[in-house]
């Protein structure tokens, strides 16, 4: 351990001087290195427990039609609204078609039967466990993404510039549990509120000074951060950036949070992790099949994600992880919907993803392989997925603090680190 640390410091020192030399010899290499933006991780929470079988359809399983009844979807290439073949007997719901080209291009991977080892079917508890990253333990104060953020900051060599005040952003009205306890985090439903009217900003400048010069270190730090946040936001003016040509975000009520997130990422605010959420996945009643309420939700989700990914473009190495607190019953209930279940499905989108394939252990729909005879089982612990994705997306070196006391296993959804 000590040896490693020394090596790393030595490496940094040496590479620093090498870079300086390079900079002296010819700026090109240094500039190129500067331009390469660090990786960004976006966590998208589908609140309400998304129905995995309506996203990734095991159409070849012979029990599928019988169990799903009116909810059953067409096979790929068949019927009016065919599902989209993912290989190995799985298919996307037709409403996920905007994401299908990304799957084909190997940028999008799916993991079946993911979830929490905790058996709870309470939205509140399951979201809590997934956001804190500690299944079964409620008193954890911080969120797993906040801990990931600490791993990033911890890697900053001493004397390096302090992390951006926009190190983490959440496009939610309140700080999500996932980011609880994080520093350098701003949660706002609409970042437009940072563009203050002139009169307010003159006052703010004086106040920020007052904070910066406060005798107490914590006030001074907060004031400095606030100053930097506002100044940086004004300099970068991210909300003036139009979407990339040809990119269209799906409509719907209110501003599309992914559209604004793309603006934040495309500017130089220094965002490393971001949190967005979508609600309405608690489909107990008439969720519909190829069309209907869940198809609408999926259409908006996939359309927004595909637009976001194209909008951000290859300049920002972004990885998107979708999560949901648990899955739903395999069988349809009496009301054309599905009830609270167990295992669900996770999607990972990004250049470092081993995409174009279905990951995870699929055990089929035989009753004996279902959780409590009714739900998809969990064969991949969400912590394994989160660790692997965060490690690669953010180039983390030490991940032991992410899920304390848990030994993670490899999932294989992310490509090996290329050097």
């Amino acid at each position: 351990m000590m040896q490693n640390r020394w090596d790393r410091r030595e490496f940094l020192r040496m590479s620093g001087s090498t870079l300086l030399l390079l900079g002296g010899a010819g700026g090109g290499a240094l500039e190129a290195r500067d331009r390469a933006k660090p990786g960004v991780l976006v966590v998208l929470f589908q609140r309400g427990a998304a129905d995995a079988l309506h996203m990734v359809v095991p159409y070849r399983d012979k029990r599928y039609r019988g169990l799903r009844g009116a909810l059953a979807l067409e096979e790929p290439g068949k019927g009016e609204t065919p599902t989209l073949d993912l290989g190995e007997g799985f298919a996307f719901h037709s409403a996920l078609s905007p994401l299908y080209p990304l799957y084909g291009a190997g940028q999008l991977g799916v993991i079946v039967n993911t979830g929490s080892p905790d058996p709870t079917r309470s939205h509140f508890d399951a979201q809590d466990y997934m956001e804190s990253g500690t299944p079964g333990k409620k008193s954890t104060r911080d969120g797993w993404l906040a801990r990931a953020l600490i791993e990033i900051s911890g890697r900053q060599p001493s004397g390096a510039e302090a992390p951006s005040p926009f190190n983490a952003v959440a496009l939610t009205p309140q700080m999500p549990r996932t980011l609880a306890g994080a520093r350098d985090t701003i949660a706002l439903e609409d970042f437009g509120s940072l563009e203050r009217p002139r009169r307010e900003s003159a006052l703010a400048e004086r106040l920020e000074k007052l904070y910066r010069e406060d005798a107490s270190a914590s006030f001074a730090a907060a004031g400095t951060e606030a100053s930097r946040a506002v100044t940086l936001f004004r300099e970068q003016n991210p909300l003036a950036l139009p979407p990339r040509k040809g990119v269209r975000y799906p409509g719907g009520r209110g501003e599309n949070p992914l559209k604004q997130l793309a603006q934040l990422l495309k500017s130089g605010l220094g965002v490393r992790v971001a949190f967005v959420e979508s609600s309405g996945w608690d489909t107990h009643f008439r969720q519909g099949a190829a069309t209907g309420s869940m198809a609408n939700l999926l259409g908006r989700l996939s359309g927004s994600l595909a637009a976001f990914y194209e909008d951000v473009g290859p300049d920002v190495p972004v990885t998107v992880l979708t999560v949901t607190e648990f899955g739903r019953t395999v069988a349809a209930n009496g009301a054309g919907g599905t009830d609270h279940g167990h295992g669900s499905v996770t999607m990972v989108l990004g250049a470092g993803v081993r995409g174009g394939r279905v990951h995870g252990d699929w055990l089929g729909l035989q009753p004996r392989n279902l959780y409590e005879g009714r739900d998809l089982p969990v064969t991949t612990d969400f912590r394994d997925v989160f660790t692997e994705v965060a490690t690669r997306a953010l180039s983390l070196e030490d991940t032991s603090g992410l899920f304390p006391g848990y030994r993670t296993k490899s999932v294989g959804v992310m490509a090996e680190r290329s050097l």
Partner: protein
Amino acid sequence: MTAKKRLFVALILAACLLASGLGVGGPSGDEVTRARLLLSRATYGARPGDLDAILVQGTKAWLEEQLEPARIDDSAVLKSLQKLENLQLSTTELMRKYPQPSRAEREAMLKARDSDEPGERKPPPRDRRGLVLRELWQAKLYRAVHSERQLQAVMTDFWFNHFNVYARKNRNTLLTLPSYERDAIRPHALGRFEELLTATAEHPAMLFYLDNWVNTKEGFDPREALRAQLGRRGGRGRRAMRDEDERALRISGINENYARELMELHTLGVDGGYDQKDVVEVARALTGWSVVGPQAVRVKQRIEERMGRGRMPEALRRLPDEGSFFFNELAHDDGVKTILGERIEEYGKHTEDGASGTHEGYAVIALLARHPSTARFVSTKLAQKFVSDSPRGALVDEMSSTFMRTRGDIREVLRTMFYSKHFVEDGMASEKVKTPLELVASALRATGAKVRGAALARTVAELGMPLYLCQPPTGYDEQAASWLGAGSILTRIRFATELAGGHLPGATPGGLPRDFEAWAADVLLRPEALPVDESLSGVDQMAFFLSSPAFQRQ
């Protein structure tokens, strides 16, 4: 003028002289500091004139009065709060007033939400239960800003946070909260810890929130139990069951959630000397402590329709109203339990109510409430709230020993703390930051603004403290570090600017003071730290002051 009235006026004059320091032996510097600190920590912040008033009365007399809220006339506030109708109702009444939306209604809501075609979009049916939450918000803010019983309001929030419940835990939790705060917390906020703990343990709000309502002995089968109750002739009753009832009844087994948090967060503290085995044993002792939900009552009604009341089994007939505490004897684990080395069975022998298994739960509560670790844990938390984020051991020792000596008399523990020599010394030296609720309430109080409706709760939420909506059972953190960050400073500045400018939603502005510096020194904890910017005046000066670090400090 009668002689009596003349005497009264003379006394008032004398008091004024004393207060202005012109009288013989005006309040000492220590007394003024103590008064400022009490106003800052034991209330939601000083209003203009409060400092003079407390000095006239004397800090000791003022504190003694605050410790006995019934002695304080608060009729104007109580009268205003009477208008919030839902807060006067019992949980049963609320459950009947706001039945769960029917399947058709819920479908309509979903449809309205998911519809993409603008032509189809009708105003979605509203979940009218939201009104209950808005009334809770309004009352909390109204009391914080306007109640004369300030310490009671502060302590009610302290205990609500200590015994936190999240309003959206499930569809029914919100409807239990008016009673939870009114009946379980406030009456005991300055009373005995054991009674407070018992009241929360039995309350449907807590039973729902930490899942004890589904905590049953291993292998308990509610369907089996119901069938057994219905007996041989119960076929008709059984046929009254529907799929959804069967699904609702699919609960069984030990659920440790409440047992764990009861020890970790409510009593002993995480290092209080218990282990996982104690958690299981406490959970077993509390098996069967449950709540009658609306669904159970509907099943009962359907069975009654089919069988007739007379032929219904006794246990079903005796089922209390929805929203009530209910001890389900059939789900209770009768075995011997050993908790923190004590055999719980022993306690049962001393209770008169030998027939009921609840005595085990009460025994556990008594054992935990009287434990030295609890005395220390609760005292530490109180000292953190009122004195310093990291209180010195000696103060916590004093408070814990009072706690033990008085069997958890909260009023006595507070006396020990407020009268300790460490209160002023450490209190003034410490760096406490106002929570969002404290900031908003203190700013309204200082400026003479009034709470209007519930809209202010949105501001408190934007500042990071959605009221009644704290998810984890830990409640909100008291420590300064949790409330200081770039985002929070910016939001605090925005709040101050809106309030000063008179356009803060949910507040009727109070107007600007004539002598700004005198006013500011009157409402600030440390008047020597008065932030002044000569170039500012009027609204800007006020916004600057309310946003300053000095006003964020408590």
